[in-house]
């Protein structure tokens, strides 16, 4: 194998159809940037799930004087009912599951509400008695919230049991859908990248049909004839995927870490380390895709 010759042939091919090569670079660049972004979004969702699920609590809301009569026939939960509920939380049956709990009274609930809705007109009309007193329960295993829900639903003095994770799940479902959409778009673009690579390689082979004919005549091996074409596709796609890797890394460094992380300091975001995990995978995917697409294209061209 004479590498100088092969490299010369690749350079020749790349120069001969510059515009096609540029479009291959751009399409692989954009499609792999989508793939990379989608992967990072998945990582981000994973991290947020870990973070928030661990902190998610189960709220046991007690009846107030304005609670609906069908769940709270006795109106405002009395101190006796309150004590009974607290006893149940301390009982040996529930104790092994509970990390800690605290009680929020009307006054604390009102202060929190005023803080959250400051400036909003509802803040003016709400009174402390309308807001639920609440037992906030942190579980040792947040996925076992079912136990609390089942133990307290329908208990006298309890208006509702609510797992915060149910709110989180809605957010995560939206993020998930977004990343699946990104993957879908990326898949379509990867298909067009593969088709574009095949077309480019076939054009390149057509413009070198004389050389190919002579090579076949004098007995060049199929591998030797095909290699420059396959490498031509691979070189173009590698440039595109390197650009995609660079784009993904800059998004992490400058947008996520440089902007989002400073705006939302208490959220954990994907780091440059995660980006460095995704980037080589993108380049590998680009090389694999182009090698398969151009190998397939040149083999089909030569068979005819």
């Amino acid at each position, binding site marked *: 194998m*004479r590498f100088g010759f092969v490299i010369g042939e690749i350079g020749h091919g790349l120069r001969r159809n510059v515009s096609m090569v540029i479009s291959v670079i751009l399409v692989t660049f954009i499609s792999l940037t989508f793939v990379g972004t989608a992967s990072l979004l998945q990582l981000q969702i994973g991290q947020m799930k870990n973070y928030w699920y661990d902190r998610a609590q189960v709220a046991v809301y007690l009846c107030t004087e304005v609670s609906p009569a069908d769940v709270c026939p006795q109106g405002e939960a009395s101190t006796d009912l309150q004590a009974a509920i607290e006893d149940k939380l301390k009982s040996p049956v529930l104790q092994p599951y509970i990390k800690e709990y605290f009680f929020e009274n009307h006054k604390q609930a009102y202060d929190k509400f005023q803080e959250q809705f400051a400036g909003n007109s509802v803040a003016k009309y709400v009174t402390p008695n309308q807001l639920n007193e609440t037992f906030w329960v942190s579980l040792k295993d947040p996925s076992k919230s079912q136990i609390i829900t089942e133990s307290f639903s329908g208990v006298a003095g309890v208006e509702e049991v609510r797992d915060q994770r149910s709110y989180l799940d809605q957010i995560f479902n939206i993020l998930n859908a977004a990343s699946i959409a990104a993957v879908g778009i990326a898949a379509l673009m990867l298909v067009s990248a593969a088709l574009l690579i095949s077309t480019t390689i076939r054009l390149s082979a057509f413009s070198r049909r004389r*050389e190919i004919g002579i090579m*076949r005549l004098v007995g060049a091996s199929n591998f*030797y004839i095909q290699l420059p074409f396959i490498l031509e596709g691979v070189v173009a796609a590698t440039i595109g995927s390197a650009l995609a890797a660079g784009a993904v890394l800059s998004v992490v460094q400058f947008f996520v870490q440089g902007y989002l992380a400073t705006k939302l300091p208490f959220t954990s975001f994907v780091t440059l380390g995660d980006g460095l995990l995704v980037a080589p995978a993108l380049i590998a995917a680009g090389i694999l895709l182009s090698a398969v697409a151009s190998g397939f294209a040149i083999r089909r061209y030569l068979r005819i």
Partner: protein
Amino acid sequence: MIRIENVTKQYKGTSRPALNNVSLEIEKGDFVFLVGASGSGKSSLMRLMLREDIPTSGSVHVMGENLVAIPSRRIPFFRRKLGVVFQDFRLLPTKTVAQNVAFSLEVIGKSQGFILEAVPDVLAMVGLEGKADRLPGELSGGEQQRVALARAIVNKPAVLLADEPTGNLDPATSEGIMALLERINLAGTTVVMATHDRGIVDRLQKRVVEMRDGEIFRDQRSAGYIKTQTDSHPVKSWNLAIDQSWSLGGDE
């Protein structure tokens, strides 16, 4: 060296076979003219010997290879032992004479050292010393065909196939090419040349295989272009053809 047995070749979408039950044996060192009108099947037969195509039925053996059964990865290695030239030269217009010859060696993985030695040698042999750095467009037709011949023989093939190599050349230039082919043949290479140049065939008096409508019409030693009454017989099978060529034995 070359053995063709009961070969029929029918191209897709045609009603009449291009080759019809053709049998032919060519010995090592032979010089064979394949003659016949345009469309009689000469090129089709050559393509089978090159393994550019396979017969519809029958068998083709060249240099011990069964070309009907040869696995495709072995075809390139088979072709390295064979030289080919065509009427249209098939040179690369952007490469010089020397580069054209070197290209055929580069692509089969020969070392730079070998190429640097072999290319000037073969160019001298075909009478092109001093033109190594010309582009094909700067050469006459005869010179271009010499480049093609140089490329075909640089690897010292056992068999040289030439499909109408003088088809584009004037008679005087053709003479030069024929002299070269005879020298290549004398050096031990089996030569099969398709042509319908009557003057050349008549003058060289080599073995002549005449084709008509895809069949071998005549196979004769030391013959001219036209069938002569005295020493030619119509041929029906390759056995007969071999018997005949042996018994006529023009050049022992």
